[in-house]
């Protein structure tokens, strides 16, 4: 009966809404924690600051390593079975500049400690089952083969190859068939020993768990990890390039890349508001109005800031039937010229700012969203007063500051265009 009372109390009490309070654990800003007691759930994100950009001579190495390790056995049982047998969730993914492992569990601390202990064993293992490696290779090679038969993945691969040639970003996370085939267990273990270390780990915990228990979880995850830091910050020289890939599809996929800033640049909030008006906010944005609402050319069109460690760009993308590709491209370039001039009323800017601020307040309505925000804060080394500083910085944005940012932080002279589809005469 007492439990019922507690649950009812949680959902019927009017709380005063404060931003989630972010704490670090053990005075270490790589370990962040938000306590939320309203549901009996704990979410954990473990991120290592190494992704496919650090694959070196073996594109696909980091992704194959993570998939193989997570598909392995610990004490004769599959890692995933430890999670699924108690109703917990395990997911993992490799990005270009980081890899992450995510756990969701009911808030039984002993159970979570068992699960984090399993993850610790997995990332410290010194051997890899050859059957597991073979299966993961087969799966990845199938995915690579399929990616060559889909316009969206062909476009993504074309952008990576042509925009960042000869850098860690030039290949897709899954790598290529030749290199994936050649990767050995030994190479994986060596790579794993290099990237799983105490200096390059970030842990984020959200949910119904105490600070002291969070500390125990962190100790369990980091147990016996080496201290060394071996990774060097990425250096990517973005190259202007135009590239069309001929492909037999009903639609052409188009991406227009405008060099811009990275997420940690002080101009970020100016670009955020400008892009909101340009193409970052769905219906009512200039791109959506001109492409979809007025002409019905595409189901979706958008622009957003892509940020790597030392390069950033605005990416505009859409899909349209092959016959309409040139028309859509022309319309987007007209809108880019409008964006460059940015002759927008102060009122429109104020409305955009207000909308972004109100939307921001609602971004923390689930534990999962808070975990994602926490991971981003951790990854970008943003300050723990993120919620306040975000609002302060956004409030400072004006028409003049946007125009300055567009002038100095966006390179309109080096726009790249990529497309995939069937050329129609």
């Amino acid at each position: 009966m007492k439990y019922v009372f507690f649950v009812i109390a949680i959902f019927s009490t009017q709380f005063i809404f404060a931003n989630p309070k972010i704490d670090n654990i053990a005075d270490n800003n790589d370990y962040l924690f938000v306590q939320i007691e309203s549901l009996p759930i704990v979410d954990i994100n473990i991120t290592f600051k190494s992704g496919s950009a650090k694959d070196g001579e073996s594109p696909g190495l980091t992704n194959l390593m993570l998939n193989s390790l997570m598909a392995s056995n610990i004490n004769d049982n599959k890692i995933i079975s430890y999670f699924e047998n108690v109703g917990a969730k395990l997911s993992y993914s490799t990005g270009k500049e980081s890899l992450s492992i995510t756990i969701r569990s009911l808030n039984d601390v002993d159970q979570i400690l068992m699960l984090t202990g399993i993850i610790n064993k997995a990332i410290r293992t010194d051997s890899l089952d050859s059957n597991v490696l073979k299966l993961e290779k087969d799966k990845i090679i199938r995915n690579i083969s399929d990616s060559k038969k889909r316009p969206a993945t062909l476009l993504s691969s074309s952008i990576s190859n042509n925009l960042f040639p000869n850098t860690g970003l030039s290949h897709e996370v899954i790598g290529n068939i030749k290199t994936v085939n050649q990767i050995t267990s030994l190479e994986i273990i060596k790579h794993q020993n290099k990237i799983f270390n105490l200096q390059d780990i970030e842990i984020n915990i959200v949910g119904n768990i105490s600070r002291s228990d969070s500390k125990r979880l962190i100790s369990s995850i980091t147990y016996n990890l080496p201290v060394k830091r071996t990774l060097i910050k990425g250096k990517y020289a973005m190259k202007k390039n135009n590239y069309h890939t001929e492909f037999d599809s009903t639609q052409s996929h188009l991406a227009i890349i405008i060099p811009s800033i990275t997420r940690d640049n002080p101009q970020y909030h100016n670009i955020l508001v400008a892009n909101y008006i340009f193409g970052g906010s769905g219906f009512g944005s200039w791109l959506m109005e001109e492409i979809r609402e007025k002409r019905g050319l595409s189901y979706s069109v958008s622009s957003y800031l892509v940020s790597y460690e030392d390069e950033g760009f605005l990416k505009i993308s859409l899909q349209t039937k092959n016959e309409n590709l040139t028309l859509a491209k022309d319309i987007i370039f007209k809108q880019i010229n409008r964006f460059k001039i940015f002759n927008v009323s102060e009122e429109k800017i104020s409305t955009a700012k207000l909308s972004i601020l109100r939307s921001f307040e609602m971004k923390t309505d689930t534990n999962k969203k808070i975990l994602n925000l926490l991971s981003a804060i951790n990854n970008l080394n943003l300050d723990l007063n993120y919620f306040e500083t975000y609002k302060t910085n956004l409030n400072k944005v004006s028409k003049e500051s946007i125009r300055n940012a567009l002038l100095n932080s966006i390179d309109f002279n080096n726009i790249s265009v990529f497309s995939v589809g069937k050329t129609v005469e």
Partner: protein
Amino acid sequence: MNLIRQIFFLIILISSAPLSYSQIMFSDRVESYYLENGLKVVLIEDKRSPSVVNSIWYKVGSSNEESGKTGISHVLEHMMFKGTVNLAPGEFSSIVKKMGGTENAFTSKDYTGYFQKIHTSDLRRCIELESDRMRNLKLDVKEIKSEIEVVKEERRLRTDDNPVAKTFEKIMINAYGMNEYGIPIIGTMDNLNSITKADLQRWYDLHYQPNNAIVIIAGNFNSNDVKKYIKEYYGSINNKKKSDKISKKITFTTEDSITVYDKVSKPIVFLAFKKPRFDNNKMRELYALDLFIEIMDGGYSSRLTKNLVNKKKVALDIFLSNDTYNQYPNLIIIGGTPRGDISTEEFKNNVLQELSLQSIDSITNNELSNAKARVSANSVYKFDSVFYQAMQVGMLETKNISWKNLDQYTKAIKSITLDEVKNAGRIYFIDNKTLTTLLRPEK
């Protein structure tokens, strides 16, 4: 015990007791009722954040459509953003955007839904806007023409250039023809080209009325205020005359096996098993079937992956799709990719072996207990998202199944026995015909 001691005792209990997972239920926070015009209202309170989801669900989807006009429910969903007698095209979205809200709509085989996630202070305005488009939609020929082009682009993106989605469409048409769940939600290209303003107006008049709709509000709101707003904005909307026209069944022939060629690198095998509509009288049997499916494919450590991918090495991957609450006959579909040189026939035989009597009879209590743990934990996780809470209620209520089933499901699952699970497996997989579809790399 005096009052202070009682309160102190209660505080001790609350702060020291772990939360009981099983006690999180919809019934603790849901209130539902009808307006006089038949509109059903479901209020789900969750005050964890200042946001609230305002949604309306119409009991119309592609399964209600007629041959020749497939995709009309989805086109109408798009047109609902194109203005009313009070609002210009796009103005609805523009208002929600200024609020910092997010909005969208979705069409399924059974329902069409619209929602806005907004700050609680904007809820009244959104209720007003949603009620406005229930009765005042303005269909403009130029807007229809443009929006149908958008829908055709959506079809190209999601179906025509997507081999797996296209194959699923063919599987459903092969099983049910252009009837009920056989009708593709997005419609065929030919049918999309033929939809007129008169068709859309008729569809709107037939289905967009209070007694065919459910308002679901989930999140942070003041219950008394919300009830007042709902009555104020929806209470005066009258029902239009409902057509008693029953759509004609299209005759069709189901092939036991079909082959599709498309842009895939390796063949994919789909095995489909027909399943009757959800029936309250067979509830335990259907819930036992859910557990059987959970044991077979509820995760990467479940039987199909464990045996076919990891042990026998005959599959690269396996997936299974099933809808518990289908209001028309539906398919349970098991699919996967044969590994290496394994033929599609060999792959199929291996899957069927996992579904054989001998295999079913070997299910253990331990497997059942693990499956129940996953279902039980999921019943807690689903409360993290306010939107998902509204979705779950809407997905049932539009099929005339009470939201109360959500709580009953969690309770019932715990009491399902091993024998019931095995029996469900026998009924739906042993005594049932298999429809086979092969998606092969194009020649």
